């Protein structure tokens, strides 16, 4: 009896003690991460918003609120650049989605786990390790006047003079953006489609759903969080891409990111901050639009809850 009560006593006291320790550790960790996030992410963005309402004087600022920076940057050619950037990003994101969705579907549901799948997944990570400039510059030797495409077209007699809209053009920028941002679109789609229980797809087939009906009524709605994430992960970094337009636009087709370089080079920090806060606004609007779209289609937390069940 004494042995039993002794063990139960020990068992009764020990767990709360460990729980208290774990709790305080957890709390400290959460506070630390929140603090670092505030200092590292929120503070710069907030200071951007502040600086955007100041006027520059040399490398310092005049500390009186003003909308000068905004009126400085919102001139005709820059509005044109912003609209062009938005158009190109929207179109390339759409192209990425159209290419990535069938690919992710095949990867997640069509392909059995094995070597092929592993190799493809590794290949999808590789672009993240390559220098953006290195993988972009390759297009020059393919699209240039003496590049691969023009050589083939010329030698086959399809064209007499090299096509010069291939490089340093909007075409080149579209093409150059597709490669680097393909994994950003594929990954969230692949993960969200993988999470869909095969039984749900079978149930849809069993109840009379054709392949297309099953895709539209079951797979797409359940993959919606991944579709949203894919669009955001692709479009947002693409808005700030300054490599592709610099290397493949050749100064003829400027995108938004290059404007930052220009403004900073001209030491117009307030202007750069104003443009950056505008970009943040665009990104927030994009995020809100995607969320609203999900809501309208009745997608909410239930989807995730359903996956766990």
């Amino acid at each position, binding site marked *: 009896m004494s042995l039993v009560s002794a063990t139960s006593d020990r068992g009764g006291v020990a767990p709360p003690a460990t729980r208290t320790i774990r709790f305080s550790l957890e709390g400290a960790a959460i506070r630390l991460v929140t603090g670092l996030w505030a200092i590292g992410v929120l503070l710069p963005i907030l200071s951007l918003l502040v600086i955007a309402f100041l006027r520059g004087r040399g490398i310092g600022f005049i500390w009186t609120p003003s909308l000068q920076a905004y009126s400085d940057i919102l001139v005709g050619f820059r509005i044109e650049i912003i609209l062009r950037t938005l158009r190109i990003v929207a179109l390339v994101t759409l192209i990425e989605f159209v290419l990535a969705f069938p690919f992710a579907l095949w990867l997640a549901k069509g392909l059995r786990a094995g070597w092929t799948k592993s190799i493809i997944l590794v290949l999808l990570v590789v672009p993240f390790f390559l220098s953006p400039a290195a993988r972009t510059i390759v297009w020059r030797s393919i699209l240039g006047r003496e590049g691969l495409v023009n050589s083939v077209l010329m030698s086959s007699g399809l064209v007499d003079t090299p096509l010069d809209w291939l490089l340093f053009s909007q075409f080149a920028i579209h093409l150059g953006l597709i490669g680097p941002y393909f994994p950003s679109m594929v990954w969230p789609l692949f993960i969200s489609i993988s999470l869909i229980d095969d039984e749900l797809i079978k149930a849809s087939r069993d109840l*009379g759903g054709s392949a297309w009906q099953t895709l539209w009524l079951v797979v797409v709605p359940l993959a919606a969080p991944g579709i949203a994430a894919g669009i955001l992960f692709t479009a947002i970094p693409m808005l700030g891409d300054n490599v592709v337009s610099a290397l493949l636009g050749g100064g003829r087709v400027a995108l938004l990111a290059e404007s930052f370089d220009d403004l900073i080079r001209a030491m117009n920090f307030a202007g750069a901050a104003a443009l950056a806060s505008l970009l943040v606004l665009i990104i927030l609007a994009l995020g809100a639009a995607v969320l609203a779209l999900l809501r309208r289609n009745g997608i909410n937390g239930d989807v995730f809850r359903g996956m766990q069940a």
Partner: protein
Amino acid sequence: MQQLPEAKADPHSEPILELANIRHSYAGNPALRGISLDVARGEFLTLLGPSGSGKSTLLRVIAGLEEPDSVGQMRLDGHDIRKLPANLRNVSTVFQHFALFPHMTVGQNVEYSLRLRKVPQDLRRQRAEEALALVRLEGKYERRIHQLSGGERQRVALARSLVMGPDVLLLDEPLGALDERLRLDMQLELIELRRKTGGTFILVTHSQEEAITMSDRIVLMRSGAIEQVGTPRDLFGSPETEFAARFMGVENVLRGTLAAMSGRRAEVRVGDQIIVGRAVGDVARMGPGDAVFVAIRAEHVHVGAGGGAANTLRGTDGAPIYKGRFSDVTYRSAVGSLVARLGDADQRAPKHADLSFSPEHCIVGVVDRGKLA
């Protein structure tokens, strides 16, 4: 000639589902070894067997969710469905984990098959409500799936399958995910549902108790082949092979050699004892010298003197196990250990006793049907 149309009208005249020589394997491992089976209209058929016996595979082949290696014949309501994909077969599956669509409401789940068939919305809703009423889920049309209990999810899955009016309803261990109490309730509810709808149900289960309670007919499966087909009474009372006897829960299964046969009366030599029993299965193919099994249910073993039956053995070192409603006592005997059941759990089991059982309750059959064929 006159009777021909009349015979056609009889719902029991031709089977709703005819299967012949279905073979399937997974990566070279045979899962179905030539299954042939007819299912009658309105029948409650159970595919019973341990895991890996191929029962679920067979169900998926019928649903069209698994493409078998080869099919001799597969006819549903008289039509060849061998080449028909799952979505064009008028059968419906209730999945083990229900497979309800988490992004839809209860109502949307139930009317899914009608939506696919372009049924107008108001008619769809009306039929979904009817199906929900059938499974006693009135007023849950607008609920979300995660708000339901396990038993309610089970019923939604049933309603979703029934609403499309399938020729055959396939139930893939649908009670496996429920707790004990709910499972017993759902058994009765399924029986009631079958009675109300008059549909043909095929149930897959590994529980012999479930199979006996619900089925008109049981197909016992073993490593991809059919071991025995019969009514619950046949399977429970007269298991024809040693596997069937063990799977149907017979506590005492012994092996011996057939010593003599006359009609159904068989004399079996077990060790140096002769046990008299009732031969089951194809008696004509059994002869003296054959390896046979002897099976006696514990409740048929009489403990103590005065049994007066033909088979009497001396039991020693009785070890009782309390089971609540009864106790099982394991005795040592000349033929090995024998379990006897005491109906009154509080009755003191004698340490040593005479054990007797009548030949009627002692089943004799071939050890393995494969060795006969």
